C-alpha cells in the first residue's frame, strides 16, 4: 500500500482505505436492535469533584445508560458544584469509604489528587466496585505493584485508566497507519506539552493552598510528567509497542519561583528496548508548540495533537530511494512539470466523518456500529470528544462485561514512565526499568577497536 510515492489524491485514497479498516467494518449485522442489556443502567459514584472530575461529570451526564448515585469530595464548594453539574439527586459524601459501602453502586470513578489514587483503587476493588481512575494511575513504584495485584485479585471487575487518546478516533487511525507500515520502522518520537502560564488555581483562602494547588507539591504530585507528560509517554509506548528501557532527564524550577516544589520545565529522553527514543519536553513559559507528538519512521512522519475535541493529524512521506531487483525494462514518460508541493507539504489525516445529512441507510449503519461497539468488535461510532468516548466505554464495559481499552497494564507502564523520569531528573542519573537493571548493556552496541 505504501510502496509508491504519495500524491495528495493517492493519499486521500490511502487514508480512505485506512478509515475503512478502522472505522467501516463489513456491515453483515443480522439484527440491528440486538444490543445486549439495552435497558441496563450502570449506577456509579465519583470521588474527587475538582476541575478534572467536573469535566468527567459533564461527559458522564450525557451517557444514556448511566446514573450517578453518589458524589464525594472533602471540599464542600467542589462537592456542591459536582452535584449541580451532574444533575439528578446524587448523595453527597465527605468520606469515600462511606460511599463505597453503598450496595446500589456498580462503579466508582476516581479523580482525586495523584497520591490518593492507589489506596482508593484498592479499596474500591475490594468493595466490589468497577473502577475508573484518572491518569496517572498511581504515584509510586510500590503502588504499581499493589494496584496490579488488586486488579488480578478481582479479574471480573473493570479497572480503566483515564488516557483518553486511546479513545480518540484520530489516534486510533494513526496507530493503525503505523501498524500497517505507513511510517516504515518507527525509530523516534518527539513530544512536547508547552504552556505559558503559572499552572496555578486561584485560592481565596490561603489555608486551602496545598489542597487546591496540590499539583505544585511533591507530597501529592508528580508534576508536569504526571499531569501532562503521562498522556504523551503513553502515545509513544503505543506507537513503539513497548515500554521504555531507561530514561535520562533534567528539570528545574527556573521561571516560576513562587514556592512550588515541582519542576516548571522538564526535558527527558526515554530509550526503548529496540533502540527507539522518545525526546520529551514540557515547559510553562512558552505555548507556541502546544501539545503534540511527532512519530518518526524511516518511511514517514505523523504529527498528532489533541488540542480541542477534534485533534489534528498530519502525515509526511519520506523521500526515500526505492530499491528493486535490476532487469525489468526501463520505460519513461515525459509530461507536464509535477508540483513539488504534493510531497513536501503534510497531508491531513482525519478520522471517519459522519455527514450532517445522512440518508436512512447511513443512519441504519450508525445503529449497526453502536451494536458493534457494544460487542467490543468495533471501537467508536462517530466523532465525539474522546473524553466522552472513554466515559461511555467505561460504562459499557461495566454493563456488558467488556475489557477496557486503557487497562491496568497500560496504566502501569504509563505510571512507570512518570515515576522513573522524575527519579532520573531528581537524582541526575540514567534510570533503568527494573527488568533491565541487571542488563544495562546497550542493545546491539558496536564495539570500537582502539587504534
Amino acid at each position: 500500500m505504501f510502496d509508491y510515492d504519495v500524491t495528495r489524491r493517492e493519499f486521500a485514497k490511502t487514508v480512505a482505505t485506512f478509515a475503512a479498516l478502522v472505522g467501516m467494518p463489513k456491515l453483515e449485522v443480522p439484527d440491528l436492535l440486538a444490543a445486549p442489556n439495552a435497558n441496563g443502567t450502570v449506577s456509579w459514584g465519583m470521588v474527587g469533584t475538582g476541575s478534572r472530575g467536573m469535566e468527567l461529570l459533564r461527559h458522564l451526564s450525557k451517557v444514556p445508560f448511566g446514573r450517578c448515585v453518589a458524589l464525594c469530595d472533602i471540599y464542600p464548594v467542589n462537592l456542591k458544584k459536582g452535584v449541580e453539574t451532574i444533575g439528578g439527586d446524587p448523595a453527597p459524601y465527605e468520606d469515600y469509604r462511606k460511599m463505597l459501602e453503598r450496595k446500589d453502586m456498580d462503579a466508582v470513578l476516581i479523580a482525586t489528587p495523584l497520591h490518593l489514587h492507589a489506596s482508593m483503587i484498592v479499596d474500591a476493588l475490594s468493595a466490589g466496585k468497577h473502577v475508573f481512575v484518572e491518569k496517572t494511575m498511581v504515584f509510586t513504584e510500590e503502588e504499581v505493584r499493589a494496584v496490579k495485584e488488586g486488579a488480578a485479585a478481582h479479574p471480573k471487575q473493570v479497572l480503566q485508566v483515564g488516557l483518553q487518546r486511546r479513545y480518540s478516533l484520530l489516534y486510533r487511525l494513526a496507530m493503525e497507519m503505523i501498524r500497517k507500515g505507513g511510517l516504515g520502522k518507527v525509530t523516534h518520537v518527539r513530544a512536547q506539552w508547552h504552556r505559558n502560564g503559572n499552572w496555578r488555581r486561584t485560592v481565596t483562602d490561603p489555608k486551602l493552598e496545598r489542597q487546591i494547588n496540590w499539583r505544585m507539591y511533591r507530597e501529592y504530585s508528580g508534576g508536569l510528567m504526571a499531569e501532562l507528560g503521562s498522556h504523551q509517554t503513553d502515545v509513544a509506548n503505543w506507537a513503539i509497542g513497548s515500554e521504555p528501557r531507561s530514561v535520562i532527564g533534567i528539570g528545574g524550577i527556573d521561571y516560576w519561583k513562587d514556592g512550588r516544589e515541582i519542576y516548571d520545565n522538564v526535558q527527558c529522553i526515554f530509550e526503548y528496548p529496540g533502540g527507539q527514543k522518545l525526546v520529551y519536553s514540557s515547559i510553562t513559559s512558552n505555548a507556541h508548540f502546544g501539545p503534540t507528538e511527532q512519530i518518526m519512521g524511516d518511511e514517514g512522519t505523523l504529527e498528532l495533537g489533541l488540542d480541542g475535541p477534534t485533534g489534528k493529524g498530519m502525515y509526511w512521506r519520506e523521500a526515500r530511494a526505492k530499491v528493486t531487483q535490476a532487469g525489468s525494462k526501463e520505460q519513461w514518460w515525459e509530461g507536464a512539470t509535477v508540483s513539488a508541493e504534493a510531497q513536501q507539504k503534510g497531508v491531513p489525516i482525519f478520522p471517519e466523518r459522519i455527514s450532517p445529512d445522512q440518508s436512512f441507510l447511513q443512519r441504519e449503519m450508525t445503529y449497526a456500529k453502536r451494536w458493534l461497539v457494544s460487542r467490543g468488535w468495533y471501537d467508536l461510532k462517530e466523532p465525539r470528544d474522546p473524553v466522552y468516548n472513554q466515559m461511555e466505554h467505561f460504562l459499557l464495559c461495566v454493563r456488558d462485561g467488556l475489557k477496557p481499552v486503557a487497562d491496568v497494564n497500560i496504566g502501569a507502564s504509563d505510571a512507570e514512565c512518570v515515576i522513573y523520569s522524575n527519579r532520573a531528573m531528581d537524582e541526575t542519573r540514567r534510570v533503568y526499568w527494573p527488568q533491565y537493571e541487571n542488563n544495562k548493556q546497550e542493545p546491539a552496541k558496536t564495539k570500537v577497536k582502539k587504534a
Partner: protein
Amino acid sequence: MKPFPGPAKTLLPALALLIAAGPLLSEIRLEQTRAAMGTQFTIVAYGDDESYLQSAVSAAFDEIFRLDREWSDYIEESDISFINRHAAEEPVKVDPELFRMLSTCLEYSRETGGAFDITVGPLLRVWGFYRGTGRLPKSEEIKAALGAVGWQKVRLDPRSRTVSFAAAGMKLDLGGIGKGYAIDRAAAVLREAGVTAALLLSGTSSIVAIGAPPGQEAWTVNIRDPKDAHKSAGQVMLKDASLSASGSYEKFFKADGKTYSHIFDPRTGYPVQGVLSVTVVGSSGTETDALSTSLFVLGKEESAYYLRKHPGIRALYCTEAGCEWLGRAH
C-alpha cells in the same frame, strides 16, 4: 488518613498581603485577548497580584474554550453537532447546563413571539451566510428551509433531560446567545476568584462588566454610530451590567440593488430591513446577547412594547431616521 495535612505549610506572601490590605490596592491591570467561537475574546482585570490575576484570567478563558468545544456547531465532535445529527431520529440526552441553556432559548423565543430562534441555521445556509458571504436564494429554497426552522419544533423533556426535533433537517445554532453566556460564565469564574474589577468582551458585540475600574465610577463604553464608525451614537456607563449590539453593518451583501443583512426574521425567512443597529443594556450577557438580535428582528415599535414589559433593560435603537433610547433602567 487526612488527605491534606493542614494548616497550610506555604502561604503565598502576596496573597497574604492581598487579604491584609483589602481592596485598597489595585495596582495591576491585566489584559489578554484570545480567539474562540470564531471571534476574539478580551478580558481586562484589575488586582494586586499579577500571578494570581493570571491564574484567574486563564481559568476564565478555559471556561470560554470549554463552551466553544461543547456548543460550537462548527466542531463535529461538539454536543450541538451531535444533537443536530441525531435529534430528528431519537431524543438525545444532554448535560444539565446545556438543557438549561436550551430551555432559556425557548423561553426567549416564546417571549419574543419567535423573533429569537436558535433553529434559524437552515435559513443562514440558503442565504449563503453559513461559512459564506451571502447570496440571493429562490423563494422555493426559502420555503423549503422554513420547513426545518421553528423553535416550537424543538422538544425538551426535563424528565429524561433529552432534546429532540419534530422535523428532519433541523439544526441548532447558539450563535445568537452563546457568546453572551460564555462571558457570563467567565465572569462568574473571575468573581469566584475574588476579582472585583473586570471587563469581558466577545468580539465587540457583547460586554460584561464586573464592578468598575479603580478610581472610576464605571466602565465607559461608546456605542458605534452605524452610519459612521468614527462617531459615537451614545455612551453607556457599565457597572455590574452587560451590553450587546447587533448591526446590519457587520455582515451584508448587495443584490438587485438591495442590501441584505445577515440578521433574519425566522418567521418570514427574509433578512430584516430598515434597522441599522440595536444595542441592549441589561443585567447579563446571555440576556443582552439574545435580546439585541430579537429586538432587531421585532422592529422599533414592538421592541418598545417588549421593553415596557421588561423594566431594567434599555436599548439604543438605530434606524435610518436616527438613534433613540427605548426602555428604562431599574
